[in-house]
């Protein structure tokens, strides 16, 4: 059944097609359009169809009915609008009134339309279209023109009865698609960027402002620039050869990069691909830091000035100790030697408990090294700055106060000192043997009074003193250890020390001696201990602060005798200069002490010592 249906529909379609194309069949007349160009008159147009051939000619009538209550009337004018048209003039036209038109023949109605005139307004196209050249571009390729026209004469635009909008369309002659501008009320419009070498076509149409339908197009107006005699006619616009530029640029860049990469010249490579800078200190070789010895490093770093070699090297310390031990030329320093030898045990005693965490401190207090009794001088490990040596003044007392022969007198004081010293040693682990004596007490000068006859009761005596300064002449200025010098007030002993140097290191005992003067104040030694225990190495500031206290304290206190250490060991490791302990105050040029290592070797000392 479906197949039959399909065949049937196909047959019908074929019949329809044949019917439509056949001339025998009737085609009904139809009203094609009714339009009013100005809203004052209107016309209706229809198509004849095949009716004309079959029946009597021209029996078609157009009937119209104005409003609802009237009858059908025949078209008043069949001629004016052309063939198959009906024209209604002003008298027959009423705006805003519904009309119905009917295409009929005798009693047969073919078509009917109802409308009102204000709905069928389709204005005529504008007339008198012309264009003028506005300006041309500097290259002469483009030009701007102004197109003007007049409204259709039929439309009464002047009185405002109808308001028209115009639409302009233009295109190049050989193009197919028209370009449209927005509809506008004005009767002129500029066209920009027309190519001068080409011809254009312009056409216009209009519509009533309140409707959407446009009227007919106007005639086509041709725009040609050749009549202006432009000699810069260029058919093709020469664009920038971007493609070539990009291609060649890429190739060149690639070639350059390849050359650079492949070239063996490191300089060129450095130029193009510079190495990333790494941090570097001038004058210091990083490799040295990695594998060099500490003393060398210290020497290097100290040469930069501000460096305070706070590093303490066991090696240095050991060597330092060796120096004292192996010094055979200390015969001149009989007193020293005697003291050293005689007070071995003392030193060893005083070294008790002077175990220190800091490097080298413990070593200084080893009993097998009696000379280097730095038990109390653990703090003397502090490495003085080079400035210390520079600031040695001429006013220093004898080196280590060893010139004094007041050992007997100082024995008692020494014992006292020693006791105190041991006390301090035993109590504190990190004995700061350099209690600072401030530079404020300028008058303080190291004066170590040698302990002479203190073998017996020198158990408490510490027979060493700290070197506080080294004079330019080579003398070593010791911290004040001896207060009981003959005819010398204790205060003076303390003040004799030269504290004008930056880094002043004092043995704890020395400070204690000075403090002991002010024995009325018990807090001071304690304080001093504390201050000494603060840090293994004093800085100038710490020295200053504590020294002030000490200086102040020492200024007031009466003089009391205190034992003075016998000798001074060189604690100061200062590179590149060395430290020479010269008991006989032999002038030694400083320059000889400018060694890479921070200590004076035995040989050097032998040279120096007489």
């Amino acid at each position, binding site marked *: 059944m479906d197949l039959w249906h399909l065949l049937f529909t196909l047959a019908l379609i074929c019949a329809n097609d044949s019917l439509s194309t056949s001339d025998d069949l009737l085609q009904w007349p139809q009203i094609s359009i009714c339009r009013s160009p100005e*809203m*004052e008159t209107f016309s209706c147009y229809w198509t004849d169809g095949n009716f004309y051939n079959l029946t009597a000619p021209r029996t078609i009538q157009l009937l119209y*009915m104005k409003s*609802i209550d009237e009858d059908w009337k025949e078209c008043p004018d069949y001629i004016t609008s052309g063939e198959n048209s009906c024209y209604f003039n*002003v008298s027959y*036209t*009423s*705006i*805003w*009134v*519904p*009309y*119905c038109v009917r295409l009929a023949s005798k009693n047969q*109605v073919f*078509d*009917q*339309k*109802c409308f*009102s005139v*204000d709905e069928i307004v389709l204005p005529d196209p504008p007339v008198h279209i012309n264009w003028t050249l506005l300006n041309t571009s500097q290259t002469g390729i483009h030009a701007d023109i102004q197109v003007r026209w007049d*409204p259709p004469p039929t439309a*009464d*635009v*002047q*009185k*405002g*009865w109808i*308001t028209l*909008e115009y639409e302009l369309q233009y295109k190049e002659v050989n193009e197919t698609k028209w370009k449209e501008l927005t*509809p506008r*009320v*004005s009767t002129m419009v500029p066209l920009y960027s027309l190519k001068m070498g080409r011809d254009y076509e312009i056409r216009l149409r209009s519509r009533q*402002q*309140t*409707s*959407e339908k446009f009227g007919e197009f106007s005639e086509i107006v041709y725009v040609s620039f050749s009549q202006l005699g432009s000699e810069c006619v260029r058919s093709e616009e020469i664009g920038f050869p971007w493609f070539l530029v990009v291609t060649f640029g890429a190739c060149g860049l690639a070639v350059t990069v390849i050359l650079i990469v492949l070239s063996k010249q490191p300089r060129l490579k450095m130029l193009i691909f510079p190495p990333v800078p790494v941090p570097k200190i001038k004058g210091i070789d990083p490799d040295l830091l990695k594998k060099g010895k500490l003393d060398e490093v210290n020497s290097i770093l100290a040469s930069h000035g501000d460096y305070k070699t706070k590093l303490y090297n066991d090696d240095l310390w050991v060597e330092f100790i060796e120096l004292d031990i192996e010094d055979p030329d200390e015969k001149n320093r009989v007193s020293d030697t005697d003291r050293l030898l005689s007070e071995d045990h003392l030193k060893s005693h005083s070294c008790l408990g002077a175990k220190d965490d800091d490097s080298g401190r413990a070593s200084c207090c080893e009993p097998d090294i009696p000379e280097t009794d730095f038990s109390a001088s653990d703090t003397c490990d502090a490495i003085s700055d080079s400035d210390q040596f520079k600031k040695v003044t001429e006013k220093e007392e004898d080196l280590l106060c060893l010139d004094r022969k007041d050992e007997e007198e100082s024995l008692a004081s020494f014992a006292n000192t020693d006791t105190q010293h041991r006390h301090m040693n035993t109590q504190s682990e990190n004995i700061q043997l350099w209690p600072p004596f401030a530079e404020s007490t300028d008058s303080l000068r190291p004066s170590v009074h040698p302990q002479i006859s203190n073998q017996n009761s020198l158990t408490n005596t510490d027979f060493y003193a700290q070197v506080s300064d080294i004079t330019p002449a080579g003398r070593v200025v010791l911290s004040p250890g001896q207060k009981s010098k003959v005819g010398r007030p204790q205060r003076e002993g303390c003040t004799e020390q030269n504290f004008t140097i930056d880094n002043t290191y004092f043995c704890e005992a020395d400070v204690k001696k000075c403090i002991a003067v002010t024995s009325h104040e018990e807090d001071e030694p304690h304080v001093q201990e504390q201050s000494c225990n603060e840090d293994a190495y004093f800085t100038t500031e710490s020295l200053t602060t504590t020294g002030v206290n000490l200086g102040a304290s020492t200024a007031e206190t009466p003089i009391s005798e205190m034992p003075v250490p016998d000798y001074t060991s060189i604690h100061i490791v200062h590179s590149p200069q060395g430290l020479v302990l010269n008991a006989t105050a032999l002038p030694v040029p400083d320059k000889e002490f400018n060694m890479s290592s921070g200590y004076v070797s035995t040989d050097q000392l032998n040279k120096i010592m007489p």
Partner: protein
Amino acid sequence: MPAYIGDAGDSPAPVDPSRSAPGSGLRRAMAPARAAGRAGAVAALALLWLLVCGPGDSGCHLLTVADLFDRVIRHSGRIHSLSTTLYTELEKHFPPRDNELGKPARKCHTSGMLTPNGKEYAQKIPREELTHLILKLLQAWKEPLSHFNQHIEHHQELPDDSLSKAKQISNMVHELKTGVEKVTKKMQSMGIISNSLNGMASSEGTGLSISNEANMMSDSDFIHCFRRDSNKVQSYLKILKCRIMPENSC
């Protein structure tokens, strides 16, 4: 008083009746920006009435009658565009009328009003009568529009855009009526037209009966009638403006 009120919707047109009311094209009416323009125009129009010179103020020439007419004409053009848009939208939702063979059944409640149906008639009748007719028409539509708004809200199938348009139309008609009244007063103050507006009272009376008829119409017919009448009002205003200007040969 400020010399000029900028019309937000359209550029100020010169005193040229042939170029008046450039804002009521349907295509433009459908653009969403038009709503904003209309709102601006309404606001501008509202401001306009505040700054129209009083009747006793003869020295107030800041806003000429031509400018006032331009604004009023533009406003009426917008109303017409809006109504056309609304009509096309309503045509989609309501069954289209069969106008092929049947008689035109559309009968508007304002059909009974004797209004000039052509340009010549509009040119011939006295200006006062033309002004009066304009006001009468606007008055006739004032109340039916409000009823229509209430009625159309119940239509669920209509889009919100249509509903908003309907409300907007009724507001704008009210604005336009106020504007025309102001222009009339100005014209009377300037002696352009006489002060005889005797027919106004009668128009008020007939307006009530007419509006009763309007309630009987269907929505589609209602909008169709209003669209036609809005075009009538616009054209009358244009002719009136032309006739007022002495230089134009209206």
